[in-house]
């Protein structure tokens, strides 16, 4: 009789297991928690097209990959102390990942080490620090940017060319890399670069330095600006000097001023970054990090070369005039 008794017990067990299993299946939610991402840009300023566009891209990624995104930023792009405080606050909020555009190359490093110490993955967007702390860096490939510009300059090189580069900050990584790229793009004509000036990222300084240069070296016929301020200053000076036809000006980064100079024919070409893609890719990478996925250490964001003739083409105008809809940044949580 004994072995017969096992079967009903087995049956009952099976039935109970079925019901319990069913209940378990039904009541344990398989929905994973939304990853919580904190992004600390250099600044939040809707009048600043670059950061507004970057945030729009960031928000797009957060929506698409189903993450909660909080944004916190300092009052100014140079206020690294405040940014350090924000980083500490962000650590206390225990996000799944922190993405940051450090305000300082050196001064944020110590605080950012704490992020790594607390085990939160770290993503650099747009800019980096002296210590490569981040799990991944999403930034414009400045060498590639320079190379595009260099190749364009070489293409339209006048006879007897004298090239002067107006840099923004001496020894800054972006200036060095962009310059390097221009030299690569110029190839054999690299030797035609006569001088590299630095305007300390000031429009006014770039403007006066250009005027001085044209007095000092009137033979200069190619001028290259390495960032928005340098480029705009150079272009404005050439416009004011009435040297539009003698000097070819090349710029970096887009601004309304730059676009106007491009329309006016002072700027031959400008190379622009893609902040939307940078924000999008940055937050996408951050989310993938939070989900524990393998990601690349370095994600270069491509730049675009814009000339007067292609600026209103279907593709380029969408990149040059990024359209930020009302709702693109509407649902971002600003802490």
């Amino acid at each position, binding site marked *: 009789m004994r072995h017969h008794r096992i*079967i009903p017990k087995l049956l009952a067990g099976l039935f109970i297991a079925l019901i319990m299993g069913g209940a378990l299946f039904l009541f344990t939610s398989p929905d994973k928690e939304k990853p919580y991402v904190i992004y600390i840009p250099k600044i939040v300023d809707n009048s600043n097209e670059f950061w507004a566009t970057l945030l729009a891209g960031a928000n797009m990624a957060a929506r698409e990959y189903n993450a909660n995104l909080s944004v916190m930023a300092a009052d100014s792009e140079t206020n690294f102390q405040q940014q350090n405080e924000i980083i500490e606050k962000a650590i206390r909020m225990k996000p799944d990942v922190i993405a940051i555009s450090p305000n300082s190359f050196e001064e944020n490093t110590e605080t950012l080490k704490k992020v790594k110490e607390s085990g939160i993955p770290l993503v650099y967007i747009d800019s980096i620090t002296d210590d490569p702390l981040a799990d991944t860096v999403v930034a414009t490939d400045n060498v590639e940017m320079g190379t595009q510009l260099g190749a364009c300059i070489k293409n339209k090189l006048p006879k007897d060319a004298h090239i002067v580069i107006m840099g923004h900050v001496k020894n800054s990584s972006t200036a060095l890399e962009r310059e390097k790229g221009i030299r690569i793009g110029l190839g054999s004509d690299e030797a035609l670069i006569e001088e590299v000036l630095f305007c300390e990222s000031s429009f006014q300084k770039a403007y006066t330095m250009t005027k001085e240069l044209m007095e000092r070296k009137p033979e200069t016929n190619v001028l290259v600006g390495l960032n928005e301020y340098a480029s705009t200053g150079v272009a404005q000076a050439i416009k004011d000097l009435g040297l539009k036809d003698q000097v070819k000006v090349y710029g970096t980064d887009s601004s309304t001023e730059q676009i106007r100079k491009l329309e006016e024919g002072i700027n031959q070409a400008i190379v622009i970054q893609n902040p939307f893609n940078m924000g999008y890719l940055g937050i996408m990478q951050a989310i993938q990090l939070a989900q524990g996925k393998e990601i690349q250490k370095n994600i270069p964001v491509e730049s675009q070369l814009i000339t007067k003739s292609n600026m209103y083409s*279907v593709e380029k105008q*969408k990149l040059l005039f990024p359209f930020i809809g*009302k709702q693109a940044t509407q649902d971002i949580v600003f802490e």
Partner: protein
Amino acid sequence: MKKQAKGIGIHTIRGSLLLALILLLASVSVTFFIYALRYTDRNVQHNAIDYTVQLIDQVNNDIDSYITYMENISEIVSRNPDVREYLFSQSLSGQEDEALYEKIRDHFRTMLNVREDIYNVAVMAENGRSIIGDGSKKYNPYSDIQNSEWYKQAMDSDGESVLSSSHVQNILTGSYTWVVTLSRRMKNPYNGKLEALLFVDLNYAAISDLCERISLGDRGYIFVLDQQGELLYHPRQQLIYSGIKTEHVQEVMDWTGDYFQVKDEDGKKLYTISRSDETGWTTVGVTYMDELIGNRREIERTYGIVVILVMTFAVFIISLISRRITRPLLVLKNAMQSVDNQQLMKVNLNEMPENEIGSLSQSFNAMTDQIQQLMKENEEEQRQKRASEQRALQAQINPHFLYNTLDSIIWMAESGKNEDVVIMTASLARMMRATLNSQNELVTIEQEMLHVKSYLTIQQMRYRDKLEFEIRIDPDIRSAYIVKLVVQPLVENAIYHGIKYKENKGKVVITGERKGKNVLLTVKDSGQGMDEETLKNIFKKHKVNYTNNGVGVYNVQARLQLHYGEEYGLRYESSPGQGTCAYILIPYIEEVQEHETS
């Protein structure tokens, strides 16, 4: 026998019944679960698709209404005589010209103020005269609109309105705004030639707002394609132009239906398409299928709970019903098993349900009743047989004893002992009466003792000097009943096997006393006693001690136990030279039951 009332082994009917029903139920439930879910999925999906189609149609209509509005404006402006006059009249004085310009500008300003989604209204004649917007912003001399795509399209037309795709309008200095331009060429009323261009710019944000305002789940979105299939609006256009994302534009352009489904790296998506006859544009809604049935989890949960509840309830009911069905069977089975185990008397099935098993039980009851009846009859027969046998035995009076007694009487008569002859003859007569005359198997102890006393009296007269006897019976047991003729054989035994072999006088003592519910009679002799071997075999049939009349100890014992049961009867105590003691233990019975008499 193991208790089986709760048995639900797989081999039992109940077990099989339970198993079958549970399996059936489980499969039905699971099937229900799957089909209900699938049906709901289909339904939800269907509704969602319907809803999305309507939504996208609505967006498309809204866009159309903007375009219609632009069309109306262009119509109004193109028919405005002031505008015509300002552009083409050659006979205007400076002052008139100024006044006309102001008038038209005011007109434009009003139009632009009323609708802020209209970015700009402008007319430009080939003769160089133009009115651009309300004049608050300057014309951008570097705008180079002649080379722009929308301008070329407009110039290619024959005076009908042309709708551009989305583009950046740079005609106003310092302003780069995304717009959609509706343009038409205007006739010079003086020569009937198309010599001016009128265009209305719709703020692109108006369209993007329309598309963004509609929520298609968390991740869904709307995009708009122009006549050529270029992206007019797409929330991810930056990503698409950078090659990070792709859009299924070609599929949309090739598709003629309302919607289709696509599966790519983002998952399954529903593309809902609405084409505008007005603009030739295509509005497309993209919905993620997993969001479409987002509350699937909820539905699964609800159905799951229902299934589990129903199954639990049903199993409970099934086990109840199966017990109702199989319990009587089990009872019947157990009853039959007890019949096997010969506990027939106790088996009687009551309270059985009135169904097949009920009638089976009734038949079973009838059968056991009959068997019981037969067994009773059989027993009675046996009893009667034994009783007649007994009577036969009882009826036998030892002929030797009779002969010896008569001999003694003759001898006494001859020697003139008349008194002794009277006593002996009387005793013999009493004995004869007790043996022969009784219809009853039971007699009172009093009567039994009278019989024994008669016997002992005779024997004492025969063995004058050798035998002494004493009878001591408690008065309160005298009226109790005993199986008759059980004491005399023991006494006879005591005399012939005990006292007879003794040199000197022997004594037989008979006592009777109450022992609780029982009566104990003792026959004690002072004879030679028995060794163990003899004592052991005293109850054996073949060791019948009295070859002369055959009523031995075995017979006494058999009769006592037959009548009173195993726990009563005869017991001997003896050892050589110490005499023998026989004990008769019987229950104390004062009333004789009717059926015992026969």
